């Protein structure tokens, strides 16, 4: 989540001698990241990243508070001019007459604090220039004074608010409840949403839904040019509910991105009071009801205990005690010390993210500045890498480089494939859809099933690249995923495979495999099947087998000092006389060392046989005798 605020706006709360660019630099190092800064006229726009556990600083005041803590650590002056959460209390609102009423029914599991105040005599008109300008720079469209004030409040104090037209609420009744599945609401933007059920909504006295709480108000209760009476509405909602609704309905609003992170109930009061002041000043609105405040479970003071030693141990340097305490105080923590011990009370707006000593360490270390900590390597220690990993990485890398040097291109495909691709390969690979591990929430049909074979993806690579290059030779080493894991230590059986695919010919692919087996000095060669699909040739092997049979060096053969006799012989190949048969028969001779292919023309094959003995020089006669046996 990012927010945009301006420098001048920040200066409403902050007194500083730091330039906007210094503020960007130092805050980014120690607090909220100011990703971009842009100068427009006499103001600067800060584009600030809000990390998910710090929704409390997603507002002008929050950034001012961070700045007042951080900048002095970089030798810049910075102090808070005012704290609106201390200044604005209910007792600041003067109500002359409680003319209007609102009956409410609330479920505190959905809404932990509910405040409302009714105004009359509202004048709907354009906002004053400074509000218009600030909102425009923050990229929020200026509409009218009342709508703008609600947005201005949100950005100033970090609490979204809503304004209803009081006269449009039937029977002056609001029932805050969970929606039923299929209920619909038409929101301010004119869009109608069918609710998934369990969403926080408000219905009025006639059973109409008037608010999709925390996300967007209903169109039927919205203020208009003719509005005379309005309800300023400031709430704390159940964050999980808000997130669920906004994700399921796809209605993403800025308000929702605040509420879904969990807001501080204590800040609701000041927001309502400051809102009342702005409405009075810029819309002439007069408060004409009692302040409705439903707040069942108040904030219980939370404390964290730690020691200076513990803090410094985790940071790795000694930060002076006074500095530690000052940092915490500036961030709104109250600190009591007892020798080495710190008892820290956590402000309400940090209740979700500060619970343990390590959370306190983070506050101190970041404000002090991570960049001021000198790095050192972790103390050296020898840890044995499990042999299976050592071999896996070493041998797969060897295979990859070897295939690359033969001219193949490595590809990495998604582990997930489409049903269509599985069906296309069902026959060749005997693939069954139900054997595949299925993804419940795929974002596309292309990635719905976990692969059981790498070949369909590689085949697709060949198809996709056809015409781009004359010769295509791809390989991939990746896992395939089986449903049952015999080891039971994880849900699936994940096995590495090597697959090769070419658009050349059968013997090209076979030659690649044979060269690879030789390179790996395999003790035993694997069984494999080269598949021809539309004149693409593909093969897949288990990496496990290759690893098991891998040898770093082949078995040494002593160099034979005796003569080698080479003899050629031609055969006519047929179904009954294959090369494999000739080879098998030939090697029955104990003197045969090697066979070489001399030529192949049609089905006539000429082979060269190498004969030698380890004990003596063979005569040609002896060799010929052997050859005749073949």
């Amino acid at each position, binding site marked *: 989540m990012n927010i945009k605020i301006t420098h001048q706006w920040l200066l409403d709360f902050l007194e500083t001698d730091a330039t906007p660019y210094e503020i960007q630099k130092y805050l980014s190092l120690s607090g909220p990241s100011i990703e971009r800064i842009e100068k427009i006229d006499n103001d600067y726009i800060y584009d600030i990243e809000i990390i998910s556990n710090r929704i409390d600083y997603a507002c002008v005041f929050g950034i001012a508070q961070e700045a007042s803590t951080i900048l002095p650590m970089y030798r810049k002056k910075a102090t808070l001019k005012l704290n609106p959460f201390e200044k604005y209390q209910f007792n600041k609102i003067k109500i002359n007459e409680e003319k209007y009423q609102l009956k409410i029914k609330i479920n505190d599991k959905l809404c932990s604090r509910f405040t409302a105040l009714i105004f009359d005599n509202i004048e709907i008109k354009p906002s004053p220039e400074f509000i218009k300008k600030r909102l425009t720079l923050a990229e929020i469209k200026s509409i009218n004074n009342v709508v703008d004030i609600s947005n201005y409040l949100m950005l100033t104090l970090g609490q979204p608010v809503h304004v209803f037209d009081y006269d449009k609420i039937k029977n002056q009744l609001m029932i805050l409840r969970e929606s039923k599945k299929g209920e619909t609401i038409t929101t301010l933007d004119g869009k109608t949403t069918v609710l998934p059920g369990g969403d926080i909504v408000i219905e009025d006295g006639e059973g109409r839904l008037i608010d999709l709480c925390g996300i967007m108000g209903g169109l039927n209760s919205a203020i208009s040019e003719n509005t005379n009476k309005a309800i300023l509405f400031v709430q704390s909602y159940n964050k999980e509910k808000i997130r*669920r609704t906004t994700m399921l309905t796809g209605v993403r609003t800025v308000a929702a991105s605040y509420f879904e992170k969990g807001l501080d109930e204590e800040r609701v009061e000041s927001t309502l009071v400051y809102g009342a002041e702005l409405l009075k000043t810029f819309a002439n609105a007069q408060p004409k009801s009692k302040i409705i405040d439903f707040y069942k479970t108040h904030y219980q003071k939370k404390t964290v205990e730690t020691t200076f030693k513990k803090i410094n141990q985790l940071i790795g340097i000694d930060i002076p005690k006074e500095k530690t305490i000052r940092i915490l105080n500036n961030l709104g923590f109250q600190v009591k010390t007892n020798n080495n011990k710190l008892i820290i009370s956590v402000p309400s707006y940090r209740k979700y993210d500060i619970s343990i000593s390590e959370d306190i360490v983070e506050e101190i270390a970041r404000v002090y500045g*991570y960049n001021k900590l000198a790095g050192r390597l*972790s103390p050296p220690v*020898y840890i044995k890498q*499990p042999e299976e*990993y050592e071999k896996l990485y070493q041998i797969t890398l060897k295979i990859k480089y070897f295939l690359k040097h033969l001219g193949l291109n490595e590809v990495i495909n998604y582990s997930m494939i489409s049903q269509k691709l599985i069906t296309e390969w069902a026959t060749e690979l005997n693939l069954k859809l139900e054997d595949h591990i299925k993804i419940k929430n795929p974002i596309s049909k292309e990635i719905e099933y976990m692969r059981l074979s790498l070949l369909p993806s590689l085949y697709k690579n060949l198809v996709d*690249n056809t015409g781009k290059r004359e010769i295509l030779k791809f390989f991939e080493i990746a896992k395939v995923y089986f449903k049952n894991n015999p080891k039971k230590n994880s*849900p699936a059986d994940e096995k590495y495979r090597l697959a090769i695919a070419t658009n050349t010919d059968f013997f090209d692919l076979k030659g690649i495999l044979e060269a690879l087996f030789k390179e790996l000095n395999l003790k035993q060669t694997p069984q494999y099947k080269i598949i021809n699909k539309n004149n693409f040739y593909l093969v897949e092997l288990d990496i496990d087998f290759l690893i098991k049979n891998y040898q770093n060096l082949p078995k040494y053969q002593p160099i034979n000092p005796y003569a080698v006799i080479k003899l050629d012989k031609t055969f006519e190949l047929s179904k009954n006389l294959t090369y494999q048969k000739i080879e098998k028969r030939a090697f029955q001779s104990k003197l045969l060392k090697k066979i070489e292919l001399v030529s192949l023309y049609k089905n006539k094959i000429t082979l060269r046989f190498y004969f030698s003995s380890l004990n003596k020089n063979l005569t040609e006669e002896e060799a010929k005798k052997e050859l005749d046996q073949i």
Partner: protein
Amino acid sequence: MLTNYLKDFENKLKKVNNLNQLITLKNEYLAKNGLINQLIKKIKDLPIEKKKIFGIEINQLKKTVGEKINQKEITLNKSNESFIDLTLPGKSYPKGSLHPLTYTIEEIVSIFQKIGFIRVSYPEIDWEYFAFESLNMPKGHPARDDFETFFIDLPENKIYGKVVLTPHTSSGQNREMRRIKPPIRMINISKTYRPNWDTTHTPMFHQFEGLCIDKNINITHLIGTIDFFVKNFFDKNRTIRLRPAHFQFTEPSFEIDVSCGICQGKGKINNKKCRTCKSGWLELAGAGMIHPNVLKTGGVDVNTYSGWAFGFGPERCMMMKENLNLDDIRILYNGEIRFLEQF
């Protein structure tokens, strides 16, 4: 006496550039009426005692001239007959390629190996317990919903919960703590999955996890280790900064940025905003000190041990290295030959 003749000849030979000139020179010296024969004719006019010496000298001169002319002829013929263009390309050998990530991962692993980190591997299809619970992300945490994580259609395990495609390599943290007692120095690089698919996201990507658990481990060790990596992996001109961040499984947490290699950390190219980075910085990794809940869940005594962890995206690391500027990262996984063959 005849040395001048030889010198004279050698000077003339030097000026010879082609066979015709050579034949002319040869005739001048060795033809019937050539210089040598004229000298021989002079012998008879000499006194007897000089005749012998002069004869030897002339013969010597004749022999030398003949040899030199022959040699010259050979050289001239050679350069004439076959012109060899040495600027022609050499014999062509097949040039395959590895996926650029393979090189990146190899480089990352070798950097960490030098400082004693071992590479391990953990499941890509795992239970929620390892992906979330053990990482201090209880039920209801936003990362656990199906907008952030792929869920698998396999029966739920009574103890470990639903089955997911691991959204991060951190799922290996608890598994490594179960495998061995501290000290731990682990890196885990693996495929990871999240339901996003656009120019900057692919539903499958890689992550690279570092984990260090030992006595007295503190923030400075994390900074030092990452600094070592960045200085080895990127060039020396790239700088890093650390920013506060929030992760459930580390406390304190931070984000590590590297200065942008496209705009040299300036945030601008030709006065236009750099499209690659944010004000000159690129997010490189998330990191932090391991949350005590994570250590406890892994059976590590938090009073004795502490540790750090980080998670990088190797794709990002690769792209951040100079000269690898990918506008659309989907090209990494669509098998495009014109992309792959370049590496």
